[in-house]
């Protein structure tokens, strides 16, 4: 029997593929396979490819999910993406309002904290992977303290047997144990196996210590003083410096003449003034920077960096592994420009703060502006331009009679000032284009030397004229109890605006 039905609706009949905004794996697979296989064969091949890539077979031929088929970075990327989802919800005014109505804000913040925690662990593992790869050794396995053999601990019958070209990512693989808080990450010390073995066998020797106080660039051998001191909270840190210590693996069986270090540790050291006469030296318990020689390198080239200070929670857990510089002996760190900049960068490094702008409800303001209201412009204008009516810059030999000031606000340098103090004239300069775009953590002046600390880059230091445009955009001077400001806004050297302010 056949029945006829009127259909007012569109039934979505099975289609081979879903449509979407980005290419899916299956879609790409079928596209690639269409010239080689029939549709049925393609389908079988597609499902089989998932097994080949992401599962393994045991002795009995049973397939099991392989939780190590992805890389650590794959998982990290997804956690990052989830964090940005939460961030996207919480920073939209509209959604935040709804979220608050549903009392979802607190749970979201809690979830965000958990995801951040997971991200830190994954990032740590990523760092471990990077470190051992650079050194040229195998990445240490994570282990749970359990009694029974489990396939993740290398026991049991779950042994991956399948080898495929795609799965040779080896040490970069994700290890699900990284997510278990029971696996204590502080146990992993980022020490190459060849070093820890040498240490155990008594073959690691200290090459020497080097002190440096960077402000005056002095090198003192004061380590013995520091060693006998106990830290006290009342003490004031006066100057910050570094203790650089080098080690070498010396094996009597292997003749080795070169005094090239295998390990270089850099500690922060503080010069502390106890009273008018007594200075003591104190160092942080752990180095903030340790360099190791990679197995294929002739100098120390792999640097483990812990930017946290002892009082911060992340202290003792590395934040970065970098390979920007090569160093053979400790002295290289202070005598070579690039190496020195590297040292300064990480010792003064400040972590970028994660801060979300929580949208506020727009405030409703009432503002009535009457037509024809009085318009006031405090500036006078002149086509030929205004000038400082007296000589304030001395001749060449007295060129140095100015001081330098710098104004930094919210990461932007608003201006650099030259203050001609004898005549009370201030010139304000903009930074040159190449420096103006950057965001700065700090800016300091010592005499005429300007030191800028761009975010996420090496600090730059040099004579002030290196950084500023040749002409000032504003000059302030005083005449007869009036403060006069002249300004050049189009950088043509003509100060077209003037403003007089009574003192």
């Amino acid at each position, binding site marked *: 029997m*056949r*029945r*006829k*039905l009127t*259909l*007012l*609706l569109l039934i*979505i*009949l*099975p289609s081979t593929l879903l*449509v*979407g*905004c*980005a*290419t*899916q*794996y*299956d879609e*790409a*697979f079928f*596209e690639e396979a269409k010239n*080689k296989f029939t549709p*049925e*064969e393609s389908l*079988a091949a*597609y*499902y*089989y490819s998932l097994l*080949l*890539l*992401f*599962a393994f077979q045991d002795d009995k031929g049973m397939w*099991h*999910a392989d939780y190590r088929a992805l890389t650590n970075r*794959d998982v990290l990327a*997804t956690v990052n993406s*989830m964090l*940005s*989802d939460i961030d*996207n*919800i919480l*920073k*939209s005014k509209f959604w935040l309002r709804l979220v608050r109505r*549903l*009392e979802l804000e*607190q*749970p979201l913040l*809690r979830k965000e904290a*958990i995801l*951040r*925690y997971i991200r830190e662990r994954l990032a740590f593992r990523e760092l471990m992977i990077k470190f051992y790869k650079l050194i040229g050794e195998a990445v240490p396995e994570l282990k*749970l303290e*359990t009694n029974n053999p*489990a*396939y*993740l601990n290398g026991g049991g019958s779950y042994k991956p047997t399948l080898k495929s*070209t795609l799965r040779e990512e080896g040490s970069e693989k*994700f290890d699900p144990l990284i997510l*278990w808080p*029971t696996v204590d990450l502080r146990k992993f010390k980022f020490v190459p196996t060849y070093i820890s073995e040498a240490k155990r066998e008594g073959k690691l020797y200290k090459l020497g210590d080097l002190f440096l106080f960077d402000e005056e660039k002095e090198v003192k051998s004061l380590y013995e003083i520091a060693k006998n001191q106990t830290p006290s909270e009342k003490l004031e840190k006066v100057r910050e410096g570094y203790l650089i210590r080098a080690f070498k693996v010396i094996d009597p069986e292997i003749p080795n003449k070169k005094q090239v270090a295998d390990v270089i540790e850099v500690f922060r050291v503080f010069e502390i003034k106890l009273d008018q006469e007594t200075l003591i030296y104190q160092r942080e318990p752990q180095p903030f920077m340790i360099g190791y020689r990679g197995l294929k390198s002739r100098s120390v080239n792999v640097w483990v960096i812990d930017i946290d200070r002892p009082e911060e929670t992340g202290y003792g857990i590395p934040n970065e592994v970098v390979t920007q510089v090569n160093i053979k002996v400790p002295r290289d760190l202070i005598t070579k420009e690039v190496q020195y900049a590297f040292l300064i960068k990480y010792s003064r490094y400040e972590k970028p703060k994660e801060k979300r702008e929580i949208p506020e409800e727009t405030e409703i303001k009432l503002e009535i502006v009457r037509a024809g209201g009085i318009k006031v412009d405090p500036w006078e204008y002149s086509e030929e331009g205004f000038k400082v009516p007296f000589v304030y810059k001395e001749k060449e030999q007295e060129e140095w009679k100015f001081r330098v000031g710098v104004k930094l606000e919210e990461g932007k340098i608003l201006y650099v000032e030259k203050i001609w103090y004898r005549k009370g004239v201030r010139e304000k300069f903009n930074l040159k284009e190449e420096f103006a775009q950057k965001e700065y953590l700090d800016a300091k002046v010592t005499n005429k030397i300007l030191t800028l600390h761009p975010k996420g880059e090496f600090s730059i230091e040099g004579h002030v004229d290196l950084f500023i445009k040749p002409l000032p955009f504003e000059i302030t001077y005083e005449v007869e109890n009036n403060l006069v400001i002249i300004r050049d806004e189009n950088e043509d050297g003509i100060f077209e605006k003037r403003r007089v302010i009574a003192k």
Partner: protein
Amino acid sequence: MLKQSFKFAITILFILAIGGLSVPPEPVQFTSSPQVFYNPSNLPHLFLDLRAPKETLERIIEVNNLFSSYLIPSARRFGKFSNLHPSFRFVLEDKEVKVLFLDWIELELRGEKVLKYNPPNQLPQLFPQNELEKLKRKLTQDIKIALNELWKILEPENIEASILDKLVKIYGFEKRKLLEELDKEIQIENYQVKVREILQIPKFEKKDFLPDLIIVGELPFGILGAATLSLEGAKRVVFYSPLGWRFDFIMGKPYILMHELVHANTQIQALPLVYYFHAEMFAELSMLMADIYPFELFFHGYLEPVRRAVWNYFSFDVREAAKQIFSFSTARVYTIDEEKFRKFHIMVQEIAKELKRFVKERLYPEFYSHPLYWVAFNTKLCQSYAFFDLFMGLEYEPTILDGAENTKKFLLKHEKVILEIAKKALKKAGEKKETPEKLEEELSGFSFCPQDLVWWPVHVFPPGKAKELINSLSWQELKLFLEEAFNLFEGGDSR
């Protein structure tokens, strides 16, 4: 910044009712002297014109009639909130649930209290006050049924045990030690968090399926139900449209409600994890499992991955079967071959039975023992159901190429070629394609992979029509509607 509208809030059951969109809106007329409709039955007025046949084919015909008679033009509109909507509360499993009847209003007419059924853009109807009691009774009943049915088909205690077994096997803990481990609390920033919560391993409780608020009111496009995605500790909302309720009446069980209750459960569909797997398929699979209606498999857009896997692993070509049963004479008229229907129906029931076992014994335990790993997997493949496709392979031998043996021979022979193709495909996965502008505008800033709830309109609307439909959606109206709905939490009992 009014973005991520859909990303956050709405998951929509969208099986039907797309075709009617091209019908122009009917002018709305109100009668000048309203008549109160007398309803002698114990059933609410919504169900008086419907039948609930036991036989599947009869049901399909009845459902078809329901959607055919439904005035789809009105479906573009959202209901309007006022303070006249009746509401009530009930307690189930120690949880208080509030219900608001958005499409009804309590009025006084000639000194008498009446209930007005007033869905958007449809003719209003008046009922005596006791109609409200009938609605309340039926809804309370249906929620109870939905909850018990879900609990019965999923058997969450067994799923939980399977998850633990899996973890024991993989990590080598003893079971007691594992439970201790999962309950260990650690300090994360200002929070005390259990290991279980970090690893997102669910613990099932009946009450977690219950939302805090159920809004009964028509939704645009003939959407049958919707739910907010949420997190433990927040208020959760389920939208249940009278159309969906009527659909459930015909089916004999509250399927739509069950589907939405799965979304409402934050143990299994928590933010933001839920964006990274085919949460709709999970919700819909529980409906497929609830016997009697395995015919979902033929039509439901959310079950597309299931259909494909069924073809590969069970040799059953759903698309071909559908073609043989339903033949279209014109675009809107089809005939059903009853003989074929009965033949395939038996097969589909077999499949549903097998899938039931698969879902409980493989899908849930595998996914929820390592949820973070599997969502990363989906992201890598840019495919929200990739985990499902893989799990099917862990459980079954493919049979598509003339039986298991032949298929296996073929695959082993072509292993190298398959890996080459796979390598290329993996590289291509995640490449961005064209997106309807309107959707891009509303959702910019969100990741395109894997595609699931966030981008649902793109893969739920039929290809070719998606762009037009998405652009015609009134985002502003949707936002207003949600805002008013969630405002109900501030006003407390006043509404």
